[in-house]
């Protein structure tokens, strides 16, 4: 088991290097200039922009930028020790090569995701700041999806072909197809504006004291959770229906029925437990999803989460922020998959981790 986990973790290293390479060049190949987008103002001169680009290293070639982002070491032609040396950056000029070498102390290999261009804060700090909000919404949505999706799926399978099954399947398709940006606004309009039952957005009622109030938090959580969970319920119920249908055709279920077990025992002891095992495979990645956030839902509901952070960073061409988020999400996804594989082995003795 330990060796398995270790091997999987070691395998993750080349994956992450690959992710870093692809995402870096992909992000940088997108049109748009992170400096220009911040300074699209006739009052700001090109000289100012050039200084800003140089300070951020954006004047360097892409491979140099990549190495600098990845390792934290950067090179520049000429003696630029004075210009770039600071409390956190140490530089040396090698006269022979006419090159200055700087160690910024950062680099993702050293676990430093860099600094956000927009706010000048560490990328990691900005991610951590958003984690609670994203986690709160993600967990709520996942729990609701599971608690409603699993029974609905099993019941659909039990009453296969019935009106209930057809309605559930139809609604699953409809809710999966409804775009969140439209459906979210409709819910806001209905429950927030017309009925006035629920707040229209945000994570809590904003006040000068911003005191924690559990009921207030829950009220704010309802609509965005609903939007996210509709998709989750639809997906999980359909998945569970398929899995349950597969399980009930197996020999051991037939045996269970044959030996006269009560229907409830057959369904919920034998069928459900076995049908739940494959759910692990989709649960691992969902756990990563819980932490990465939901861009559209977070935007519509003014939810201060990670999805929105990443999205606005992409729009603002905040490269370090986008890349930091991508790397973080990649690690989460890899860990999520590993976790689901391990759990799979735990719940299903037939699967050996080797």
């Amino acid at each position, binding site marked *: 088991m330990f060796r398995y986990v270790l091997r999987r973790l070691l395998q993750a290293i080349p994956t992450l290097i690959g992710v870093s390479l692809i995402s870096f060049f992909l992000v940088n190949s997108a049109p748009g200039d992170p400096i220009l987008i911040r300074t699209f103002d006739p009052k700001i001169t090109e*000289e100012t922009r050039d200084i800003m680009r140089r*300070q951020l290293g954006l004047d360097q070639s892409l491979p140099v930028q990549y190495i600098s982002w990845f390792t934290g070491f950067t090179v520049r032609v000429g003696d630029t020790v004075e210009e770039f040396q600071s409390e956190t950056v140490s530089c040396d000029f090698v006269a022979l090569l006419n090159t200055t070498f700087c160690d910024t102390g950062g680099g993702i290999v050293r676990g430093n995701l860099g600094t956000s261009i927009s706010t000048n804060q560490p990328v990691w700090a900005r991610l951590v700041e958003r984690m609670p909000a994203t986690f709160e919404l993600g967990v709520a949505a996942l729990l609701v999806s599971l608690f409603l999706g699993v029974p609905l799926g099993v019941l659909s399978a039990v009453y296969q072909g019935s009106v209930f099954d057809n309605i559930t399947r139809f609604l699953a398709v409809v809710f999966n197809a409804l775009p969140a940006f439209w459906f979210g*606004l409709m819910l*806001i309009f209905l429950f927030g504006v017309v009925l006035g039952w629920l707040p229209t*957005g945000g994570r809590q009622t*904003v006040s000068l004291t911003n005191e924690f109030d559990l009921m207030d938090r829950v009220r704010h959580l309802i609509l965005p959770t609903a939007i996210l969970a509709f998709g989750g319920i639809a997906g999980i119920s359909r998945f569970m229906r398929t899995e349950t249908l597969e399980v009930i055709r197996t020999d051991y279920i037939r045996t269970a029925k044959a030996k006269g077990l009560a229907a409830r025992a057959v369904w919920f002891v034998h069928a459900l437990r076995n049908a739940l095992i494959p759910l692990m495979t989709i649960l691992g990645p969902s756990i990563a999803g819980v932490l990465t956030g939901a861009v559209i839902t977070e935007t519509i509901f003014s939810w201060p989460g990670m999805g929105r952070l990443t999205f606005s960073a992409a729009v603002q061409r905040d490269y370090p922020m986008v890349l930091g988020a991508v790397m973080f999400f990649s690690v989460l996804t890899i860990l999520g998959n590993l976790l689901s594989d391990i759990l799979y082995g735990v719940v299903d003795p037939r699967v050996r981790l080797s």
Partner: protein
Amino acid sequence: MVQKRFSLLAALLIAALVLAACPQPAPVVQTVQETVVVTSVVTQTETQEVVVTATPAPPTQGGVFVSASLSDATILNPILSSDNASSGVHQFLYPYLIGGDPFTGEIVPTELAESWSTSDDGLVWTFVLRQDMTWSDGEPVTAQDFKFTYEAIAAEAVETPRKSYVELIESIETPDDYTVIVTFSEVKCDGLGDLGLGILPSHLYAADFSDIMTSTENEAPTVSAGPFTFNEWVRDDNVTLLGNDAYFKGAPNMDGLIIKTVPDAGARLAQLQTGEIDTLALQPEQLTTAQLNPDLNVYKFKDDGYAYIALNLANPENPQPGLDEDGNKVEQDPHPILSDLSVRQAIAHALDYETIINKVYLGQGYPMAANVVPAVEWAYNNDIQPYEYDTELAAQILEEAGWVDSDGDGVREKDGMTLSLNLKTNAGNTTREDLGALAQDQLNGIGFDIEFEAIEFGTMVGEMLGQTYDMVIIGWTGLGTDPNDDVFWRLQFDTPGSGFNFVSFSNDRVDELLRDGLSVPGCDPAERAPYYKEVQQIIHDEIPYVFVTGSIGNTGYTTRWQGVDPGPWSFYHNVEKWTIQE
């Protein structure tokens, strides 16, 4: 600065700070206050004896005003920030040297400087400061704070996009705590606006500017000299401010002000409807909803922006700068189609402005003839009429210029060149997308072959400044109270990749007029006006832009606040006097 998605309010507040350099008659802004009147049936009339008391009742205290911003602030330092969301917050915290009249945009001594005078050559400005302004920690706001702020911008240790604000400042002297003498290296009639940034509390920073970039004051300012003090910033969610008892215009009646981040436009309107927020810069399609709501007021005004279609006059395959390294004029490689004035005239006549303004801008616009908005009245050229919608005339102009459809495919040709052009705008701005589709339709109707595409904003800016486009739909907002817009037209700003003369407009007379109009000794508006009026005539005739519509702003705000008195240049100018209705 052109993005409509930026809050109009914030844009206006910035505009209010961009003030003309010289004392001048107030440009009159035409404003219309629209209040929705709710008719209610009075069933019973009671006669009441009114007791007149000698002293008026004190204004109601308390309440929290909530506004919404579409994005979160990035940094609460007025010399480091360059986004409207940040200035939307720090405008309440830092003092300003000069004030702007909220209704006319005129520079007025309502802030730190209580009076000023200029030397005969117009280079030296002496400001006398008021002595009753203090930071919320009790320290006085002094000339030293101003000097520190502007020297910080110039300091090498400080990285800021505001460097150009100090370029023309030769020196700042402070003979005593309440006198500032600013010496400019040349007369630049719109230069006083550069002195309008928020002033930093120098006593909280290192004298050598070494901590400007890293100070915690940038995220959580501990002192304020504005109407509010900083309370808390929950990133991406809200900033809360508390009334500043030490505010020199008097402590606000309200307890505090909250700026919430609400990124979605539909959600912002919903929050205004439910009263979760108190004000919102309304988009045209939101106007009716707001007007029909008895709990909302709508303030309508002509603002300092316009929408236009930029026509690239130079060859997009070969972008060239307007001047070479020695400052000599570079003859541009002309655009194969758009360099032909008759094509530009045909485009200007082919657009149905009335329909565009009514249907696309939902009535929230007015026709424009040239590059100065009527809000800047003293420089506005009243004699020029906007181009009229006349498709027959447009077709005739093209015919006469030799653009004819000889092969019957519906597209005109001339010398083997078809009248094919691309038209772009930024995706997500539905108004511009609608305008693009309509313009495409109308131009194709007279024999153009327009390929319209909505692309991502950053990409569009790249193509636009890179000068690799044919036509782009975009707009300017926050142009301010001075008519000088030399960056759009002068040769020196035609620099592919960075300059704002991205249409490659090249006209010696305009170059001269804009240069001289800015350095008129004394900066008397009456003397400057002819320069700008002539520029408008030439721009109108040469059509580097097709002016689609001037912008009208609509600010919605809840009726529960009394004393709100919005002007086109500022919504919050008297925020300390607002009271909540019980």
